[in-house]
């Protein structure tokens, strides 16, 4: 689990995919790429999201997510999670999850489950920043 300042760049995503190649037992990598959406509220567009996190607890909770996924999906070999902190503009990437497994079935199911657990369990907060620089705190459903 890595929290990085600002957006998850295409360069970082390439590095993670390249690193996946080191594990030659894997036949499938399933990726989830979360992007900041230019939502609209009260006639104003979202310019960016400001993320903040309880970093120590993010690490301990992410460790629990890893253990839970690895015990549920026995074909999964590795899980990578990279999440932004700080400001990420609309159209930029704020979350990357890559689950590597022997075969595609467990890779894709475990990736989807990992994303759900990230939203439910990780102490991360986001504030939408609008084009007029006003803000609005968001909660996951």
């Amino acid at each position, binding site marked *: 689990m890595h929290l990085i300042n600002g957006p998850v760049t295409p360069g970082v995503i390439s590095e993670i995919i390249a690193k996946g190649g080191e594990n030659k037992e894997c036949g499938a990598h399933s990726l989830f790429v*979360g992007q900041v959406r230019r939502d609209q509220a009260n006639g104003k567009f979202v310019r960016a999201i400001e*993320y*903040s*996190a*309880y970093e*120590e*607890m993010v690490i*301990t909770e992410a460790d629990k997510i890893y253990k839970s996924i690895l015990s549920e999906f026995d074909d999964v070999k590795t899980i990578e999670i990279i*999440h932004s902190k700080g400001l990420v503009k609309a159209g930029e990437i*704020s*979350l990357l999850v890559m689950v590597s497994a022997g075969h595609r079935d467990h890779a894709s199911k475990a990736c989807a489950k990992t*994303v759900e657990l*990230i*939203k*439910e*369990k*990780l*102490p*991360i*907060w*986001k*504030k939408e920043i609008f084009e007029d620089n006003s803000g609005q*705190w*968001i*909660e*996951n459903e």
Partner: protein
Amino acid sequence: MDISVLFFGVLAEITGTSRKHYREIKSFGDLKQRIGNDFPEIVHYNFRIAVNNKIVNEDPLLRPDDEVAYLPPFAGG
């Protein structure tokens, strides 16, 4: 005992701080009361409480130098 309290998200915004140190705390109830006195508006918000990175559901037994965190609903991803 001394207790560090962390505020996150909207709670850091309304309290105007992300960390506050409390001295001579007798119990968790005492701490909650002191925080409520310092930041009365906090009662209008939803939050859970963690002690040393673990969410607690009932009033925990605090130990000196514990870290207590006020956590608004999560919004990762």
